[in-house]
């Protein structure tokens, strides 16, 4: 059970956040659904458009819907001038609410329009008012179908809430996303099982309420609602961890091992300097920078090449002072300094085929690439670096597949991919005996790891001073060794343990 201990220690807080997020989304969806259902019953012509829009929302993958709310909220904040939190709870809540709408709406309309016409005629003829007919006849008879919709929505919402991690909302998904990256399968299992158990429990309690409504049995309704309330209270108790009065420093991390380790390293330094610290791990690459620029996170590590191309849209390869100046003037983000190592995109192959075909550079690769398969990380093929590489060397592959970084290395090992878009600081390059292909035309820019702080923290001299010792403290060899501790199959360590080893040696 020791493999599960670290994950179980984090479970109460994450389960609490997960319950809170799911319950809020479901509650908000119900509040929105009730007037919409009333509208659809009053005007049959509105059913098509309302259900159509809800269905359309449902066709958007949950992860994409969550991701979309970040830029939407940023736009809204800019347009309204209201200081909306654009990362974390709010975008997750809004996306999950929309996602929960369709089954509730459909169940409500189907249930209420399907009520036996003769029972309705009797209700009218006996002298029930519109309200009495609704509560005594229509709702009890529609309850099974309506509640089936609510139950479906509840199960979906609890499942989809695990996808809230990349937009920075704490949930059981934190176990799954970070576990997938670091191959900590115990953490993945804890996240999945907890989410499944929660969904089953909520579904069963809602079923109890449903039976109570259908038979007008107060006992069952009250028992079901009491059970749901108990889950809510237990979750709140789990969340009631002591929190300081000061807003904690939020350390961000993108979705790969090195970022997790660096976030832990930064967090350790800041804690040592007396700051309360909170981690937001697993952020999307572009989300992370915008979250920093907007102050939703305070500090994280990004790479000079990424910043130049993706953020500043520069096609040249600016030197550090120019890059720093550009970032500060255009986005307000401060550069504390380089960490001392580079993590560039490189193309890597297994040693044997590379030697057999005499491939040492990307130019060599371009000759044979039309017979090879590229395995890339999820964003590589959309990045300007890939376009630069194609333009500079005329690279054309037979096929290109996108993988989570962990599985990308597996794909290369198994032969499912011949070439991968690796990272130069990745410990697995040396561990797996991979060949890194040279880039004689310098198509890929430099990727110095830079410690960035939010516009609000940039003038805070004490804060920046607390981070300064990290500048130029990490060689690429040490970073690779730390990455390998987390990424290797045997004797795998947690990102926190790897960060501790970096801090100790430094």
């Amino acid at each position, binding site marked *: 059970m020791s493999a599960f201990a670290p994950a179980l220690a984090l479970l109460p807080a994450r389960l609490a956040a997960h319950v809170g997020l799911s319950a809020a989304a479901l509650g908000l969806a119900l509040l929105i659904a009730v007037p919409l259902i009333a509208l659809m019953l009053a005007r049959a012509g509105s059913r098509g458009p309302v259900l159509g829009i809800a269905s359309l929302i449902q066709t958007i993958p949950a992860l994409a819907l969550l991701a979309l709310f970040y830029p939407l909220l940023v736009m809204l904040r800019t347009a309204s001038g209201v200081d909306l939190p654009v990362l974390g709870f709010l975008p997750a809540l809004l996306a999950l609410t929309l996602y929960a709408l369709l089954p509730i709406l459909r169940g409500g309309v189907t249930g209420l329009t399907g009520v*036996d*016409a*003769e*029972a*309705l*005629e*009797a*209700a*009218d*003829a*006996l*002298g*029930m*008012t519109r309200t*009495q007919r609704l509560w*005594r*006849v229509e709702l*009890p*008879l529609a309850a099974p179908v309506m509640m089936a919709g609510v139950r479906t929505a509840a199960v979906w919402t609890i499942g989809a809430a695990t996808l809230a991690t990349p937009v920075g909302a704490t949930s059981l998904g934190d176990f799954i996303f970070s576990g997938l990256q670091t191959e900590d399968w115990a953490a993945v299992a804890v996240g999945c099982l907890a989410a499944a158990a929660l969904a089953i429990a909520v579904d069963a309690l809602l079923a109890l309420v449903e039976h109570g409504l*259908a*038979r*007008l049995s107060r006992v069952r309704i009250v028992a079901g609602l009491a059970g749901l309330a108990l889950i809510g209270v237990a979750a709140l108790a789990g969340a009631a961890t002591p929190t300081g009065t000061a807003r904690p420093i939020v350390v961000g991390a993108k979705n790969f091992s090195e970022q997790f380790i660096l976030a832990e390293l930064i967090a350790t330094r800041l804690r040592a300097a007396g700051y309360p610290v909170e981690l937001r791990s697993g952020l999307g690459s572009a989300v992370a920078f915008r979250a920093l620029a907007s102050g939703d996170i305070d500090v994280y590590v990004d790479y000079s090449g990424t910043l130049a191309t993706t953020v500043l849209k520069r096609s040249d390869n600016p030197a550090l002072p120019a890059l720093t100046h550009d970032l500060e003037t255009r986005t307000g983000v401060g550069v504390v300094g380089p960490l001392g190592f580079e993590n560039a995109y490189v193309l890597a192959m297994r040693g044997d085929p590379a030697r057999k075909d005499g491939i040492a550079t990307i130019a060599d690769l371009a000759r044979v690439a039309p017979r090879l398969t590229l395995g890339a990380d999820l964003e590589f093929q959309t990045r300007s670096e890939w376009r630069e590489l194609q333009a500079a060397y005329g690279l054309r592959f037979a096929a290109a597949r996108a993988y989570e970084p962990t599985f990308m290395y597996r794909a290369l090992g198994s032969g499912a991919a011949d070439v991968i878009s690796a990272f130069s600081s990745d410990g697995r390059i040396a561990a797996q005996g991979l060949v890194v292909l040279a880039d004689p035309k310098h198509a890929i820019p430099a990727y110095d790891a830079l410690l960035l702080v939010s516009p609000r923290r940039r003038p805070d001299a004490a804060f920046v001073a607390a981070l300064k010792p990290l500048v130029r403290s990490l060689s690429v060899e040490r970073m690779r060794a730390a990455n390998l501790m987390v990424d290797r199959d045997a004797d795998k360590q947690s990102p926190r343990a790897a960060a501790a080893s970096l801090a100790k040696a430094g």
Partner: protein
Amino acid sequence: MSAVRFEGVAKRYGPVSALAGVTLDIVAGSFVALVGGSGSGKTTLLKTINRLIAPDAGAVFVDGRNVADADPVQLRRGIGYAFQGVGLFPHLTIAANIATVPRLLGWDAARIAARVAELLDLVDLPRSVAERLPAALSGGQRQRAGFARALAAGAKLLLLDEPFGALDPLTRDALATRTRALHDSLGLTSMMVTHDVQEALLLADRIVVLRDGQVVADATPAELVAGHPDAQVAAMIAVPRAQAERIAAMAS
């Protein structure tokens, strides 16, 4: 004073005229059958009494009061209504179904329980069905429960829309006889829509025949059987009579 009075009641559904100016007086205590083919307007006429349908022109009076001026909810609670589909609430027990209007009127629990028991006896239902759901009853039992529900709050006016339509002949005859007995013992005014002329002849004091939304005959059963100037009405009455004579001939 008449229990129900129709004055030039008319109702159109698009181009179709369901009621084309019906004027009738229904004497308190009478049992009136509204007879006619489908689309003759008989059900529409019945439903104008408790305002399930509002006429386009004319007026309907119950106990001398124009129903258009009454609160429809209060009006309906004072009028018993039973129809072919019965419309028992499937999620409620028979007792709760019968108690619907007394509950709406806010009776106390003891009074409701006593009334439910009394009504079960009145419609010949065993008291053991009280706690069953409608689905557990036969069609005849459900119709009896429907009658009990219609009479629960002591309505003196009973509207019946094809009440025996879905029942087998034996059950139908037993329930029809029981209904007439209740009508007499409770002093009700009953109006029954039916397309079954024989049933109308045997149960009612007065038969009103409708065609295309108009009254084409209005007489006692005996008068109708003796003959009617309207050829279609006469033909309609002739059928059950001829059947009865053929059956009587077999027995002799």
